[in-house]
């Protein structure tokens, strides 16, 4: 989860920012390979932000492409006050919100295939089944959270995003992000208890 201690070391961060600044300069000069390098550096993060917001993997590629096209269109206005990754994630977040609005937020109820891709941690088959059931239960509970708690909670789960990055992305104070994540976790606990109780009640009738 995001915290001040989880961010990469200051030296690595400074190096990354320097590399980004150089890429921005080259992109503005019309260097296509620099643009490709910039996309490949930040696409995974931008795509993940979009995926977590819209919950539909099919849409991510198109929306991620739209994110970078928007970023390149306004690259001249990037003033370096925030990190380039944060700036791109902010655009990705706005692109995702536009898509959610366009769909009238019906995408909220689309099942997430997230739980199907986590089988590489060496657990035994039975343990894996139990772990998958638990993960499904958490996913189901997360998906019932209101958007204002769900998104900060999911963004905070990304190691590369600190609370200050999320605050910039959502255009709200850092304190509010912390409050939303805290309340989101509290609400998630309640929902987990509900989902767990319902699952057990359902299991008893089998």
């Amino acid at each position, binding site marked *: 989860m995001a915290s001040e201690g989880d961010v990469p070391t200051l030296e690595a961060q400074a190096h990354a920012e320097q590399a980004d600044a150089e890429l921005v300069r080259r992109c503005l000069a019309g260097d296509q390979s620099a643009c490709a390098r910039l996309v490949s550096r930040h696409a995974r993060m931008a*795509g993940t932000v979009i995926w977590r917001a819209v919950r539909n993997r099919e849409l991510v*590629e198109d929306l991620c492409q739209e994110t970078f096209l928007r970023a390149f269109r306004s690259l001249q206005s990037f003033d370096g006050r925030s990190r380039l990754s944060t700036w791109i994630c902010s655009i990705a977040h706005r692109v995702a919100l536009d898509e959610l609005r366009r769909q009238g937020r019906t995408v909220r109820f689309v099942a997430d295939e997230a739980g199907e891709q*986590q089988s590489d941690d060496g657990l035994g088959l039975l343990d894996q089944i139990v772990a998958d059931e638990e993960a499904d239960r958490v996913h189901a509970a997360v998906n019932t959270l209101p958007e204002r708690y769900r998104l900060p909670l999911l963004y905070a789960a990304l190691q590369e995003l600190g609370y200050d990055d999320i605050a910039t992305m*959502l255009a709200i104070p850092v304190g509010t992000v912390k409050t939303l994540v805290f309340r989101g976790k509290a609400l998630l606990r309640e929902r987990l208890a509900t989902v767990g109780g319902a699952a057990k009640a359902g299991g008893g009738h089998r």
Partner: protein
Amino acid sequence: MNQRDQQEEPLADAVLARLPEWQPPAGFAHRVAALAMLEKDHTPWAALVLRALGLAACVSITAWLGGETFSAALRSAEGQQSPGSVSWMLAMASLVVAWRCVRRARPLSRITS
């Protein structure tokens, strides 16, 4: 926080931390870069001109509405309230109310506690 909650929290944190990340498909970066370059080479002048015209129209209408409202407010302050000035003020008030309603109808535009 009861014992069950204490068990749920690390589980939730662990599951959230293990959520999969999106991986761009092969060639994605080059395709997007090529599109960006294509877009840069073909500046959509027609769209830009249309946008500028739309913006100019909005600014003109707003200035005209503002001027009319200001003069109506002045007239009403001087005691020369005419039906026209009242309707202008009503029109402006309904514009403000409509704007507030539109903003409220889009709760995702701001995420606040």
